[in-house]
């Protein structure tokens, strides 16, 4: 398959029941197809009892579409969407640990923080931890800036993303709970509107 050219970043959003083992069920859908997961976040959603996965992969649209269908097929998955980067608002959080001595001596810390939209979340005699959120490039920039001053440790969270078109999941869930859900829920989006799939 020569579809390497149309590979791009896709963010997959999955609403699920909160069930032991579901993470693995979803993960093996990727590993079975030898797809690398770039980033994965799971946490409770705005709806009690419903979890939200945010998964980032770099793949062609065709592959992502098929993977998303396999995810939706899992019994405990309520709904899965996938979006390109321009269809979502997304952020990653990063933490940076630097030695206090080094940084306070050589840098105007306040200016640094302002410049990178960061804040200090822990200030101790021996070290300081900065935090910033943003896209990959933004969090990378601060890392680059801190490197000369002895960056001791760095960690970045998985991506979290909001789908621009989404109207939330509360109403949809009510429909899922009905024995005979309305057409929107029961409808096969894939077949109905092929081009506009996965808008909510």
């Amino acid at each position, binding site marked *: 398959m020569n579809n390497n050219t149309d590979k791009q970043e896709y963010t997959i959003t999955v609403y*699920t*029941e909160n069930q*032991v*083992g579901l993470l*693995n*069920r979803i993960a*093996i859908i990727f590993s*079975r197809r030898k797809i690398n997961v770039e980033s994965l976040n799971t946490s409770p959603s705005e709806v009690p009892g419903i979890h939200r996965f945010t998964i980032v992969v770099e793949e062609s649209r065709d592959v992502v*579409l*098929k993977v998303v*269908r*396999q995810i*939706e*097929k899992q*019994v*405990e*998955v*309520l709904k899965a969407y996938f979006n390109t980067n321009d269809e979502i608002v997304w952020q990653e959080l990063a933490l940076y640990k630097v030695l206090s001595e080094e940084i306070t001596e050589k840098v105007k810390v306040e200016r640094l923080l302002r410049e990178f939209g960061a804040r200090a979340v822990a200030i101790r005699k021996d070290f300081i931890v900065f935090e910033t959120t943003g896209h990959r490039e933004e969090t990378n920039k601060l890392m680059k800036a801190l490197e000369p001053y002895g960056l001791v440790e760095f960690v970045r969270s998985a991506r979290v993303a909001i789908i621009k078109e989404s109207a939330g999941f509360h109403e949809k*869930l009510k429909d*899922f*709970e009905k*024995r005979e*859900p309305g*057409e929107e*829920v*029961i*409808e*096969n989006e*894939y*077949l*109905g509107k092929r081009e506009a799939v996965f808008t909510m």
Partner: protein
Amino acid sequence: MEQKQLTGSQAVLEACIAEGVDTIFGYPGGAIMPIYDALYDYKEKLNHILVRHEQGGIHAGQGFARSSGKVGVVFATSGPGATNLVTGLADAMIDSTPLVCITGQVFAHLLGTDAFQETDVINITMPVTKWNYQITDAEEIPSVLAKAFYLARSGRPGPVLIDISKNAQLQQFNYQGYTPCNHIRSYRPKPVIRKNYIDEAVALINNAKKPLVIFGQGVILGKAEKEFKKFIEKSGMPAAWTILGLSALPTDHPQNVGMLGMHGNYGPNVLTNECDVLIAVGMRFDDRVTGRLDKYAKQAKIIHLDIDPSEIDKNVKADVGVWGDCKETLPLLTLGIEQKERSEWLAVFAEYTKQENEQCIHPEMYPSTEDMTMAEVIRNVNEITEGNAIMVTDVGQHQMVTCRYAKFNESRSNITSGGLGTMGFGLPAAIGAKFGAQERTVIAVIGDGGFQMTLQELGTIMQTGIDVKIMILNNQFLGMVRQWQDMFNDKRYSFVDIASPNYVMLAKSYGIDGAKVEHRKDLVSAVKTMLEHKGSYLLEVMVGKENNVFPMVPQGCSVSEIRLK
């Protein structure tokens, strides 16, 4: 409301009874002993079949499910008991067979400690089950089992595995009765049928000059054989089958144009690339059916009916995807399509059949060689059973030959391992099939290779006294691999020369009568003796060593490049 103290084990068996289970295939062991202890008191209500290996147990469960249309139930213990189920689970998953497997597990407090016979069966079986769940508290048993049975049989059926820790089996709890499950909010087995795709499909069919219907097991799983027949009859369309769709339409139906795929018939393969509308019903465009995908039915508009939305557009892009249960979608299509006769188009198929008949079918069925062929054995069976038997096959050349040549009048009569291609499936599946349809004759057609993989199940036949006719077609080779080595590896026969024991003596040691046929003159009477024998019987037929199955679509070739020799 019913309220009494039950143990977890009793609750498991109560659930089985409430779900209408009457037959269980299983094998006891340490971690499932409490359930077996409870079973001692349920012997009158639940017929437990003691198999000889858990793999045999699960294949029997599959055979049972396939012949009866009910959920197959399998019990196994933890550790090796559970891991021995894996092949059967994978087979049932890919062939959409409804199963509920219950495995014992070590005490909950020992989970993760590498306890004796502990294995992480939930994670091992995750990719090969529709759903699985571990129970460590007996209170959960009724509701989880209700969910298990519901999931196994609804939507696109599949295997479900429930792992129950020993403490939960022993635990006494307040039993509130059993409530079957019919809704899970995150699970949508049955879509609402949408009118617009029905209309689009109807329009395509009505405008088609050369429509071809291809059907799979979806027709059988949806119990939609009648609806399917009406559908193809109204518009006079030729219909070809995948090996799992086989027997959904009687062999001698005038619109049945034969088998698709690698060893399928000449006409349906070639004409897949000449039809103008291809209507796929409950099939998933497996690579053994489609051959080379980028040369598959490119000229045709594709209508794809399936209950599983992830199948639509998966391998072949559909112009109209009809998502739904074909029991509901087919009648809607039938309603819309025009009454037509397509005798000219059917005559094209007949022309191909004629050619195939001359070059392949007739020489195979009525060979002029000294060696017997598999096809003539099947012909002899057809002549006596008249297509009324259940044919269970293993995997390999004999499987392709049986599917090509066996005659079927009734649905659920062809039981084979299609998607996974599990050698060793045949014998245990035939045992299960007989338990699932006791009034019918069950014939297991098995190669000398596959039979040696699960022949321990002769012990199950011996102990239960079940009546299964076993036909070993012995070519003294792992024939299908040998055929490929012959055709594609310059006849370098690498480890395909397989020796056999004396099967008749082997059967005899299990108390099963049998015979071996080496000459054509003895074949008719031997088949007759087998079928008239009261009880199980093993017939070994020595067939030509190096016969190849044709036609064949070589791997990587288009269906229209099918070779007759």
